[in-house]
């Protein structure tokens, strides 16, 4: 016996209505899935490219590939090869392939300080043809501040050592430079002495009688002979001194060149790093502020707000014993 009768007109064709509703929902879901797939580029033609990296840090399947900031593909496969290097396969949407040339470089970059890694396609000569399926492109790993500092250190330390050794050489009391200067001092003193003696002699010549002139002239001749000897000695030693001086000047010149090269390198390095520094500082500042806000929010959330004592705003009262 039927307890309920379907006399209510709202129950007519109930079965058909349920089927219709179910089909409608199914259709909407299918349309949604199709839309998502289209949005994700599943029905877009793709071209496979690859490169080899020294190290696999940061790579992951599904990692974005960008060109001028736009997503143009993904990393499809990351695998270690027989040479212990990392083969990376990319799937690039074919419509964007016209901008990827044989000299295009894939550079690994990071979003912010702690963001995801992605590959940015950089360069590409306009005159070159686009790459084709299976072509190899260049790869440049991300250079962190630590890398820059390490590179700078490796390039600077030999120069500093060279400057140090040159200065040591110049300052060495037994070295060529100091010896040369000492010799010059000595010779200058001898020349002055000789000049004094010649002056003295000439003064005496004026006051001497004729009978003494010859003897005086003999003396003068001897003095001049000695002067000749001194001059000859100077002439003999001068080339050596000049060689030493030239050698010292060459060392100084090399030192100056090294210092100049170092300054230029530092300037280049700074030029490379400088554009990134404000961003890094700003990101760090934002990161610290965000972290502080997050921590503050966490401290105010249950159950941490029950476990932690909030820091008061009032300064502690100083003890009377201070």
């Amino acid at each position: 016996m039927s307890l309920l009768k379907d006399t209510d007109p709202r129950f007519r064709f109930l079965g058909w209505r349920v089927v219709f509703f179910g089909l409608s929902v199914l259709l909407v879901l299918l349309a949604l899935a199709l839309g998502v797939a289209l949005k994700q580029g599943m029905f877009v033609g793709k071209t496979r490219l690859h490169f080899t990296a020294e190290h696999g840090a940061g790579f992951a399947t599904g990692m974005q590939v960008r060109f001028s900031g736009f997503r143009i593909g993904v990393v499809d496969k990351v695998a270690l090869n027989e040479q212990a290097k990392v083969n990376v396969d990319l799937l690039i949407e074919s419509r964007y392939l016209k901008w990827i040339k044989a000299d295009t470089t894939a550079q690994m970059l990071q979003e912010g300080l702690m963001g995801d890694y992605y590959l940015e396609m950089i360069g590409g000569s306009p005159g070159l043809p686009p790459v084709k399926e299976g072509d190899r492109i260049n790869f440049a790993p991300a250079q962190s501040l630590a890398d820059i500092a390490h590179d700078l250190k490796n390039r600077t330390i030999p120069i500093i050592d060279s400057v140090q050794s040159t200065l040591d050489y110049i300052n060495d009391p037994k070295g060529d430079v100091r010896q040369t200067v000492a010799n010059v001092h000595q010779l200058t003193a001898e020349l002055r002495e000789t000049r004094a003696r010649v002056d003295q002699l000439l003064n005496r010549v004026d006051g001497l009688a004729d009978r003494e002139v010859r003897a005086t002239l003999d003396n003068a001749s001897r003095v001049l002979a000695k002067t000749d000897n001194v001059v000859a000695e100077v002439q003999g030693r001068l080339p050596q001194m000049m060689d030493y001086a030239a050698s010292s000047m060459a060392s100084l010149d090399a030192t100056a060149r090294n210092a100049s090269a170092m300054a230029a390198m530092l300037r280049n390095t700074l030029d490379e790093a400088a554009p990134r520094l404000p961003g890094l500082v700003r990101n760090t500042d934002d990161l610290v502020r965000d972290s502080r806000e997050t921590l503050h929010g966490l401290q105010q959330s249950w159950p941490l707000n029950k476990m932690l004592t909030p820091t008061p705003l009032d300064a502690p009262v100083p003890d009377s014993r201070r």
Partner: protein
Amino acid sequence: MSTKLLMGLFILILTACAGSPPARVPALRLSTEEANRAAVSAAQALRWENAVTSWREALAGYQAMDDWQGQGRARLGLGQAYARLGRDDLARGYLEAMLESAIFPEEQRASAAYQLALLDVLHHDRALELLDAARRFCGANCSLVVQFDNLAARLAAGRGDWESVRRLAQRALDAAGSMPAERSHAHRLLGEAALAGNSPLVAREHLRAALLDDRQLAEPEWLLEDYRLLEKTAALLADDPLVQEAQMRQKSICAAARIPGCSGQSGGLP
């Protein structure tokens, strides 16, 4: 049973998460109070330079917001931090401005006068004058009365008025409750007064009580003072082992802590 438990947990979690987000605080107030809290945290960790930096930032923020109570807070903190850094002149500058202006809350002015009295503790009359001002500002329901009594007792000890020291320090001790620093100070003052009154046994008990608190407070300077007094007391009692123990403890403290009272005692134990 387990389903009911899970449901209960689910409802509990939902209740916990159901709180409405806090009201949005203006950026300047947020950063200012953040700096103020950072300063208090630094002061609690005895990082006084950091505390000065943060309180100065907070003071500028409160000034920009025309928040005089906040300014008072920051000034009191700066006064205390500079005093701990040995820059008494700067500390006075921040605190004296509070005495002169009635725009600061009375309790903060009382605190400022008290801190100035601490700075002038060696100038007896000036310190007493400031302490009177602090009591006047603080009024009847003053939360700083224990500190005031102890400081008054300290000043009385400076002029050798041991009867006042006993009265004030006992009053502070009775009211100290959960303030171990003030309790130990009161015990120490009572011990000193007992020693001056030739009651070494009483002094020894007060000093032992003070030492109990000072060990918990981990204040080397106070511990050194306590042990010096204990050494004197033990000498009066002819208690040689206690004298030696007090000396040994002083040497041990001086070997580890760089405090002014240790000059001439460095070296100490290995």
